[in-house]
């Protein structure tokens, strides 16, 4: 079980990284969501071995670690908030640059750098 869980964590993480490394803003945002998901999975996976009742706990019965659950909840919420922010940022960025591609961002960046250098050169 440990192996399977960690394999899935690794897989989700790898897919997330692969998406973040795309050259398109929406996919980058999707990638961060996957990465967040993988870390939440890791948190919950910590309680796989002893998972049991979470509600109406009785002493001595197996219990899913409530602290891990609350950590997972917090992580989900924070991830959600940040992703919402990222989505709006994607929208604004693509409007400002007229493109969804990250290379356009780089091009704009370089253009500015060259402009500054030219200006300073004189």
């Amino acid at each position, binding site marked *: 079980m440990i192996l399977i869980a960690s394999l899935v964590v690794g897989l989700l993480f790898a897919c997330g990284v692969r998406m973040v490394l795309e050259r398109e803003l929406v996919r980058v945002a999707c990638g961060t969501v996957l990465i967040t998901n993988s870390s939440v999975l890791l948190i919950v996976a910590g309680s796989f071995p002893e998972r049991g009742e979470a*509600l109406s706990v009785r002493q001595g019965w197996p219990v899913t670690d409530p602290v891990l659950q609350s950590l997972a*909840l917090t992580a989900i*919420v924070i991830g959600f*908030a940040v992703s*919402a922010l990222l*989505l*709006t940022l994607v*929208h604004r960025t693509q*409007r400002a640059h007229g493109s969804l591609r990250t290379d356009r961002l780089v091009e704009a960046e370089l253009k500015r750098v060259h402009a500054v250098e030219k200006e300073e050169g004189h």
Partner: protein
Amino acid sequence: MRSFVPPLSRLLLWPSLIIALALWLKGGASVGGGFPAGAFAGLAVLLQYVTVGRDQARRYVAVRYAAPLAGVGLLLVVGTAFMPVLAGYAPMSLFPRPGQPELGAGGLHLHTALIFEGGLMLIVFGLVVTVIDRFALRTGTEEESGP
């Protein structure tokens, strides 16, 4: 097709909100809590946006003032967390304290955690609704003015 969807969604709004309230109040005892409640309520409003459009959805006060509601929620949360220090307790002391008798009956217990969860609900509701509202607004203007 279109004719019955908007009224239906309007009909669905109130039950959804009641479920959200239930999630909030039951949070202490069973699955639920402020966060799911807020998200649920937000989803219910989202449904309104999808079916009846932004202008109709904004008829509700809570929708128009979603962002300030989130602020109120944060004040509630921070207040519940830090008010007890005025009485000499450590921050995040909830009442009744351990050992103090519980108030309330049946499934519902009065506990400051409820206020806390209520704050949570408002904040999450505020976030969801505001983001939706802004997206909806943009969709409207985008069609008019273009990129």
